């Protein structure tokens, strides 16, 4: 075993661009290339190019692949049409969230194939859980983490940039859909997904082609304001868009209902007699969330300029009423923002008297509904 961080296929590209690198889930990843605020704003107004090769791809194939995923995950995966994708979660028997996932259905009914994309930090956990849960199913779970590099092009100019490099019909490619395509002369799975709140694409491709496609996208985007973007702005983009991040808003201590994401749990699914891992606990969690929610996930907007950070306490009347899970200065709002779990009594948008304890001083914050930012369509 070595503790040396893993390098993506684009490592030398990042270094030649002068990126500030950071260790993320055991990978050496670009944090930012220049100003993270400029990178953030480029994605909101033009386009940004990300290396997301740390994400964990797991392929599930075989006649019972859909039944296995319906058993192992909380979503109704059997109902996902070929070429479409779903946001879903994998939970423990006690309902605690192991990870949030995107599942792409690649193969048609006669040769089922799904790609499960896990967070880098949880990829091994998800792989182990899927492998264990596959027992008794005529399905194969394959670790494909090394089989793919992942690039993302995000922002209002993304479609024009990607379209200039492919014959694929992007106008017909819906949000949360993916298709095999040739991009810059290279085979790729081209998906209309992202984690920024903007229109955009994710390209799964063989690592040996990553530099070719990165270069082609950089060139195609040069007249359209595309800039390389690091994980720092990815975090502020997803925070503005109200998207949860595992380890912050999501954890094994919480069920999807606690996180306000109960809609991903599909009790109505009929495969495997309706049974799936975590069902009993999740039914109770759904009831609890309805009748007596312990805490709710809310947005907070600062009235001042000091920035709330994960772990800071949310206070009202001198009492602790919650905890910040993610916080950052929002480039789009021009103010610090945060996501926080707060007691239900203080969770209504507009609740007065809520503050965040920022290193001993109680700074006033406005409680708002998520997301902070929604793009105009």
């Amino acid at each position, binding site marked *: 075993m070595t503790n040396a961080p893993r390098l993506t296929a684009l490592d030398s590209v990042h270094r030649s661009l002068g990126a*500030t690198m950071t260790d993320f889930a055991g990978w050496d990843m670009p*944090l*930012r290339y220049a*100003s*993270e*605020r400029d990178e953030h704003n480029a994605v909101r107004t033009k386009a940004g190019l990300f290396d997301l090769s740390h994400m964990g791809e797991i392929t599930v194939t075989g006649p019972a692949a859909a039944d296995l995923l319906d058993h192992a995950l909380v979503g109704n995966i059997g109902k996902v049409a070929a070429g479409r994708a779903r946001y879903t979660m994998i939970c423990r028997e006690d309902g605690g969230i192991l990870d949030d996932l995107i599942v792409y259905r690649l193969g048609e009914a006669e040769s089922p194939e799904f790609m499960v994309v896990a967070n880098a930090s949880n990829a091994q956990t998800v792989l182990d859980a899927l492998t264990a849960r596959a027992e008794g199913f005529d399905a194969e779970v394959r670790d494909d983490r090394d089989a793919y590099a992942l690039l993302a092009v995000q922002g209002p100019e993304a479609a024009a940039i990607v379209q200039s490099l492919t014959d694929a019909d992007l106008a017909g490619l819906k949000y949360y859909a993916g298709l095999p395509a040739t991009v810059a002369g290279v085979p790729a799975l081209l998906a209309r997904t992202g984690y920024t709140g903007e229109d955009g694409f994710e390209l799964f491709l063989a690592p040996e082609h990553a530099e070719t496609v990165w270069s082609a996208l950089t060139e195609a985007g040069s007249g359209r304001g595309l800039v390389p973007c690091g994980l*720092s702005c990815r975090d*502020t983009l997803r925070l503005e868009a109200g998207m949860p991040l595992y380890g912050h808003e999501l954890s094994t201590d919480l069920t999807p209902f606690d996180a306000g994401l109960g809609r991903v749990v599909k009790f109505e699914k009929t495969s495997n007699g309706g049974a799936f891992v975590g069902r009993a606990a999740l039914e109770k969690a759904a009831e609890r969330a309805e009748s007596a929610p312990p805490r709710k996930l809310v947005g907070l907007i600062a009235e001042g*300029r*000091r*920035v709330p*950070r994960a772990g800071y306490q949310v206070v009202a009347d001198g009492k602790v009423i919650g905890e910040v899970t993610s916080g*950052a*200065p929002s480039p789009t709002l021009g103010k*610090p923002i945060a996501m926080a779990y707060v007691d239900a009594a203080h969770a209504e948008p507009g609740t007065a008297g809520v503050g965040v304890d920022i*290193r001993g001083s109680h700074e006033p914050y406005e409680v708002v509904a998520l997301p902070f930012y929604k793009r105009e369509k």
Partner: protein
Amino acid sequence: MSNPQELRYSKEHEWLSAATDGVSTVGITEHAANALGDVVYVQLPEVGDTVTAGETCGELESTKSVSDLYSPVTGEVVAANQDVVDDPALVNSAPFEGGWLFKVRTAEEPADLLSAAEYTEFSGS
């Protein structure tokens, strides 16, 4: 990047100008500004405050983190740069010039500060 020869430097990455009429200017280095990333909030000591060499006297917040500001010198604050309070990005764009932080009437000659060459070796940039 180059660290100006005429300044002296602390190991907490602040710089201190030579005194003019007993008053020195304090800022953070370009190395520190680059390490922080985009600075979004600056809290400075107020005019009249006494600052002590090696002790915290304010804070700098960037997108990813918050860092204490240490005074490289002991003395009385005679000016704070309102421009960086209003536009913290100045710390990134001009750390040795328009992004200065505060001015101190120095009480004593500071010890243990580094020359430009020593700081360049210490910080690696």
